[in-house]
């Protein structure tokens, strides 16, 4: 028997270990030292330590690059994986930093423990080529998220959202597991490359497995028609939890979904080209994408709660990103990563902003943004940048992300057949301008009520939001900063 490569395993799991240690330190500090201090202070400390832990994990990833896998691909290292891990950790840091001065729960340590465990789940999720580990990591991520969504115990709606998220999530996990087990049954292996080499034709068994898997991941990325949890969770979860669900969880899920489809199920891709549909997973994804774009954008038009609006806009964005999934070239993966990362930064910024508005006005309805430009000019400018980026207005990152994504999708071999999806996506993003402008109109045009005071904004949160807005602008003006890095890694 070959010597078990435990040392390699340890090296590969180095960043995850740091996160574990950080989690324990955060809980211990919070429970032992800061127990009697104010909740806001405890949040600040815990957030700072969490961010620090993530930063150390990033350094660990960058300074000890190890390529190759252990135990037949249970844990794998590659430049690409490390890139995705760094992206995940960066966004986690942003999520942690926007939660300073929060007060939604007394269980501060536990909240950050869950946050770090979810991040760890995301890290292992992207760093494996084994179905079982994918499933286990996904569950670690999801279970932490269910609890985070319901962390605000004083709010009934948060509890309801958490429960709904849990029930839907549990069901979709069952579908996913069923799909994986069918794949195992059809190929006799849980390793992605082995599955790919033993899959040749689309048998009914594999077809069912594909549908089941698509359901499982469709739920994670909130693609219609598997999106029902999203509006409730986005609306009721505490802002940092909602931001995390909308950003980090998306990055990891999209990446692993892409890898799964192309590394394991590549031979049964089929075709989603207009007029030349071929059985496989491409048409399934194309249907999910089309449904998400149409349903997300049209439903968002009538929302009055900004958080629900964001949820439907997230569904629409998931639809756009799924287009890149079908193309499956390295360029489209780079485009997908660029899209999901810049989108994650923007979303985190928006949730931080919405949280401030909620704290000052007490609601996230459209009308609570009235006169934002007078009440908090700096935040209004950031809101302007975030929402126009989501709408895809240049020179913000959202525009370039769309451009790159659609170009990469069309430029893939046989990609011109995807033109129908691209046309649908661009047409739908024209619709989306309407509801994004609704929010901006409230902020810039509609005056606030008489005598409405200026907002009280913690300077640190404001700085974080400012940095996120700046990054949204920067990555839009100089997309090469990210792109050349991604290309280098592939």
């Amino acid at each position, binding site marked *: 028997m070959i010597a078990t490569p435990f040392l390699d395993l340890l090296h590969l799991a180095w960043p995850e270990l740091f996160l574990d240690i950080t989690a324990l330190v955060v809980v211990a500090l919070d429970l032992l030292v800061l127990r009697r201090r104010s909740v806001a202070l405890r949040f600040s400390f815990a957030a700072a330590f969490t961010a620090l832990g993530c930063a150390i994990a990033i350094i660990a990833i960058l300074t000890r690059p190890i390529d190759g896998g252990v135990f037949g691909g249970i844990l794998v290292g590659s430049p690409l994986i490390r890139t995705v891990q760094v992206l995940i950790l960066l966004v986690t840091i942003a999520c942690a930093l926007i939660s300073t001065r929060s007060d939604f729960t007394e269980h501060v340590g536990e909240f950050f423990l869950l946050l770090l465990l979810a991040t760890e789940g995301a890290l292992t999720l992207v760093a494996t080529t084994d179905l079982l580990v994918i499933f286990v990591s996904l569950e670690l991520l999801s279970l932490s998220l269910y609890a985070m969504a319901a962390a605000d115990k004083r709010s009934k709606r948060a509890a309801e959202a958490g429960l709904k998220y849990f029930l839907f999530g549990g069901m979709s996990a069952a579908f996913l597991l069923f799909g994986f087990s069918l794949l195992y049954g059809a190929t006799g292996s849980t390793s992605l490359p082995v599955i790919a080499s033993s899959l040749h034709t689309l048998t009914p068994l594999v077809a069912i497995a594909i549908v089941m898997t698509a359901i499982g991941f469709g739920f994670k990325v909130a693609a219609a028609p598997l999106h029902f949890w999203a509006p409730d969770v986005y609306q009721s979860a505490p802002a940092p939890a909602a931001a995390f669900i909308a950003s980090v969880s998306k990055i990891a899920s999209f990446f692993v979904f892409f890898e799964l489809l192309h590394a394991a199920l590549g031979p049964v891709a089929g075709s989603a080209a207009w007029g030349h549909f071929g059985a496989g997973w491409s048409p399934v994804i194309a249907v999910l994408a089309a449904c998400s774009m149409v349903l997300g954008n049209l439903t968002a038009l009538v929302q009055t709660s900004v958080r629900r609006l964001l949820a439907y806009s997230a569904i629409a964005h998931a639809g756009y990103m799924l287009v890149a999934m079908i193309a499956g070239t390295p360029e489209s993966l780079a485009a997908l990563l660029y899209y999901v990362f810049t989108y994650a930064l923007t979303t985190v910024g928006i949730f931080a902003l919405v949280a401030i508005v909620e704290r000052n006005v007490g609601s996230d309805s459209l009308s609570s943004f009235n006169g934002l430009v007078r009440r908090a000019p700096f935040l209004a400018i950031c809101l302007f940048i975030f929402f126009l980026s989501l709408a895809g207005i240049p020179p913000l990152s959202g525009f370039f992300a769309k451009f790159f994504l659609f*170009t990469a999708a069309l430029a893939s071999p046989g990609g011109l057949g995807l033109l129908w999806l691209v046309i649908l996506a*661009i047409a739908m993003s024209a619709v989306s301008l309407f509801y994004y402008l609704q929010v901006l109109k409230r902020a810039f045009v509609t005056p606030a009520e008489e005598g409405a005071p200026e907002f009280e904004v913690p300077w640190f949160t404001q700085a974080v939001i400012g940095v996120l807005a700046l990054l949204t602008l920067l990555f839009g003006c100089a997309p090469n900063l990210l792109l050349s890095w991604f290309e280098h890694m592939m």
Partner: protein
Amino acid sequence: MLAWTIYISMGAAALLLLLPRRSAQAARVVALAAAIGGFVVALLGFLAQRPGETVTVVRVPWVPTLGIEYHLAADGISASLVLLTGVVAITGVLFSWNIEERAKEFFAFFLLLIGSVYGVFLSWDLFLLFVFYEIVIIPKYFLITIWGSTRKEYGAMKLAIYSFVGSAMVLVGLIAAYVVAGEHSLSLDVLAGHYFPQHFQMWAFPLVFVGFAILAGLWPFHTWAPTGHVAAPTAASMLLAGVVMKLGAYGCLRVAMTLFPLGMAPWGFHFLGFGSWRDVFSILAVIGIVYGATVAMVQKDFKFVIGYSSVSHMGFITLGLMTLNLTGVTGAVMQMISHGLLAGLLFAVVGRMVYARTHTREFSKLGPMHLNKVIPFAAVTFIIAGMASMGLPGFSGFIAEMMILLGAWKAFPMLAALTGVGIVLGVVYVWRAMQKAFFAGDSQGATQPPGEYHEPIPPITLPEKLAAGILIASSICVGVYPQFLLRVIQPALNSPLFAALHNGGWQ
């Protein structure tokens, strides 16, 4: 050097945001200085422009991964339109001198708009062109919805959605062209030199052309224009009609026609009498000319008359482009400039000189005010602007419409005759509006309840006179000595960039 037009405008917009909140005067001065600065740069650039030459201003890689460059360049057409933008920008600031509410933000949006317009005219990389083209939408929306009047939120949203749908169509066309060409470049020269398969051009051309033409007010996609113009504050309607609609026309010429010239070739069959996209668009243009003029004839609102007259005049541009001969296309470019000056002037008279003083634009209410006696300057300005836009010799409108008609006569004699009807109708609506707004006092005075308006009407201010003077002088200048524009415009149309057009039926 021309790149500084963009930087000055955008930089001043950013500077305005940093100014203290309550100083409207400082905001105006900064805006005026930036507009003048932009104009001076534009003028120097224009004077330095040699016929037939394309001057590269800046060319650096921007996104090497996709072969996108930050490439600004100018040929005669760009230089002329940049010059127009400079003039309209200065007069726009002068006519906005009365803005007190949130002046700082107003001028910031104004200059952002101006800067992007300069950007569109100067972009030689299609991605860059598209970026500037889309940035334009946002300041437009906010200028109208914050400072506008009459159903401003509806007008602004309609305009934003129409523009965005148009640019979405352009985006689809651009991405498809980029992918199909496979040249790893979005440079105008490269793509215009690439031979796209005809079946591709046959759908890409109408897609991109219509995408741009929506902004150029092509019938039946023009409906945003009257509502948007009417809702907009004076300076914004001046910019909208003066330069923003020109962006659409410019895009039609610069992008749609140069990239996909074969899209204008005959289909090889006839459908409802149409044999090619060229037929379709020229018919639409003529319908726009006649329809716009007819509708302008029966309006009760002064500003709607001007709004519909813009649709009519923009129809001339599309018609000129579709003639596909040197005279017609040159005429189209001349009309862009001429209409830019005259629409600005007309909107300024209606929006600033009249509406801002009387708070009404209804002819029935304006009539009894004896405006010809109260503000004679406005009346005189409107008469001059009206004569110019009717196409009286000596003004810019004459030379432009003349060239378009000559071109159309060569290409489609029937349509040229119909267009003549549109010109006659143009005389009618201008005359009617002039009579009803300024000279109706005596004849209708008896039937109106007297003493309804006690508020004294303030006299015309210096900035207004100055700006009106600039616009009239420019129009006369173009009308009397068109050669200074034709000198650079005609050689530009014969440059290699437009060479491919000759395959599409150029005569």
